[in-house]
């Protein structure tokens, strides 16, 4: 899929702007706060029906305005679709495809896939396991509807079971049979989720290793592993064995809600033993592997949104990365940078065409008009 044009009205710091994109590489350059990332966010919005940076719609409207609009022409499977999204304060979000409004936003998500990589994503490496489970869940539920349903049911059963354990502790009672029925529900949905996560990681690893080696030039050995209590024991038995512990702690200590992905570099956790540059490289490889995975699962090339990726990684890796993304296997790409010359030069060296957009905001006061000039290098 390719985005032909994008027009914004009152979205974040844009009053009004229309951009026509190249089907290949698009580079947005400008100073801090000029609105480079906002363009990426608008594209992300069209794909996922919400902003990547701020999920609260009312805060994405330009100061003192009451609404924002994002409109776009998107080419998919040889046809051009018109996407329209309007948010007005106090009204329901409007999302239309070819002038037809969606009944449920969930029907739209996944039709126009995008993969975004921003400096915030480093949380995936640095933060707790929940972020990594969300990463897995986000990808798997895009191609497996039953997975998302199972996950919701599992979480509900877990909540009920934890409430029951707390009730036992507070009232100094215990009833094995009451607990067992919730175990039954956890097992029913948990086993399915575990199977799907196992299958996903197995496939994902090969994409991941491939990308990482290309960027790092084989400088280090990395690996990725799916960690789950259920990897070598059935959830049924785990729950049985942990009866005492669960009662003592008043919560469920076993199950897929304890799963994690372990990110290793030379067999050590990258969170503790990797340099910032290595962590960043790892993150980029994760995201590009996600890209390849979605492409294979849906048969559609997602749009790749790269925000400020030059931070912290060395020129050699940046070069390797640019070469990798420009080889055509990544479809349409959007890159932001604060340096005006760096990216154009890099792509000229590789011998690849690109569109450069100079994004700048004339003055700081809110009346200043956002100016964008497209020029073919």
């Amino acid at each position, binding site marked *: 899929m390719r985005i032909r044009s994008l027009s914004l009205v009152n979205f974040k710091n844009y009053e009004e702007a229309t951009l026509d994109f190249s089907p290949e590489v698009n580079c947005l350059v400008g100073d801090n706060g000029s609105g480079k990332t906002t363009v990426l966010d608008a594209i992300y919005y069209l794909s996922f029906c919400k902003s990547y940076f701020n999920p609260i719609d009312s805060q994405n409207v330009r100061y003192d305005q009451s609404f924002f609009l994002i409109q776009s022409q998107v080419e998919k499977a040889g046809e051009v679709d018109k996407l329209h999204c309007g948010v007005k304060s106090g009204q329901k979000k409007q999302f239309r495809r070819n002038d037809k409004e969606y009944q449920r936003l969930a029907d739209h998500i996944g039709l126009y896939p995008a993969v975004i990589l921003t400096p915030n994503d480093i949380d995936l490496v640095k933060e707790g396991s929940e972020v990594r489970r969300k990463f897995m869940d986000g990808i798997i539920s895009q191609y497996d509807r039953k997975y998302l349903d199972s996950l919701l049911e599992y979480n509900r059963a877990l909540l009920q079971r934890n409430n029951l354990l707390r009730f036992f502790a507070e009232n100094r009672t215990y*009833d094995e049979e009451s607990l*067992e*029925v919730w175990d039954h529900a956890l097992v029913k949905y948990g086993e399915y989720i575990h199977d799907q996560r196992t299958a996903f990681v197995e496939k994902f690893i090969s994409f991941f290793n491939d990308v990482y080696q290309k960027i790092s030039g084989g400088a280090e050995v990395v690996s990725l592993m799916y960690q789950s209590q259920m990897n070598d024991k059935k959830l049924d038995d785990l729950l049985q064995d942990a009866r005492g512990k669960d009662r003592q702690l008043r919560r469920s200590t076993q199950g897929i809600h304890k799963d994690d992905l372990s990110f290793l570099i030379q067999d050590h956790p990258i969170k503790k033993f990797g340099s910032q540059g290595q962590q960043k490289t790892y993150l980029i490889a994760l995201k590009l592997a996600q890209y390849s995975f979605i492409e294979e699962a849906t048969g559609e090339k997602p749009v790749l949104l790269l925000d400020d990726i030059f931070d912290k990684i060395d020129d050699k890796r940046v070069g390797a990365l640019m070469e990798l993304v420009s080889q055509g296997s990544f479809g349409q790409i959007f890159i932001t940078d604060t340096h005006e010359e760096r990216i154009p030069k890099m792509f000229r060296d590789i011998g690849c065409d690109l569109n450069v957009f100079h994004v700048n905001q004339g003055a700081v006061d809110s009346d200043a008009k956002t100016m964008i000039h497209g020029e073919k290098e």
Partner: protein
Amino acid sequence: MNFPSRLIEEAVDQMASLPGIGRKTALRLVLHMLRRDEEDVERFSNAFTTLRSGIKACKICNNLSDTEICGICSDPRREHRTVCVVEGIRELLAIESTEQFRGSYHVLGGVISPMDGVGPNDLYIQSLIDRVQNGTVDEIIFALSTTMEGETTSFYLYKKLSEYDVRVTAIARGVAIGDELQYADEVTLARSIMQRLPYENALPGK
């Protein structure tokens, strides 16, 4: 809102304590009551007073009733050896209005949900087990909601009843009658495929 009369204010407060009724609607209803004959209003308020003090839970099935044993449990024409387990009175009435069920009921008074502080002991489960234990029941039909809590309650009952010689069944779940298949919910449809029926059982009019 300032009312000219304290009596009106009190009536409005009471009316507005009902679910789904705000103060404006309450005032409209109260003023309507004022226009009615005195005996009319008497009959109206009496209905509620006697309702609250006169209503009983059936000793057998926990259905609401005017008498110790409800109309269904005391009806000799009904098949009392088949018992349908429901969550509440509204579900019972829904099944009754199908006119397809000639057995009797057992009203649980809710479903198991630790989140809402409802455990097995808060429901009329023991009385159901007693009925089975007394040997007066051949078949138990679970007719609970297909939510996580409903399913869990069914499973709990199933385990409790497994030591007795009683047939345990559950109402069929699947595509709603008159639905177009393309619009059917995916989870439901998946289940309908998994638990398909021999066609003779699905013949129209059966």
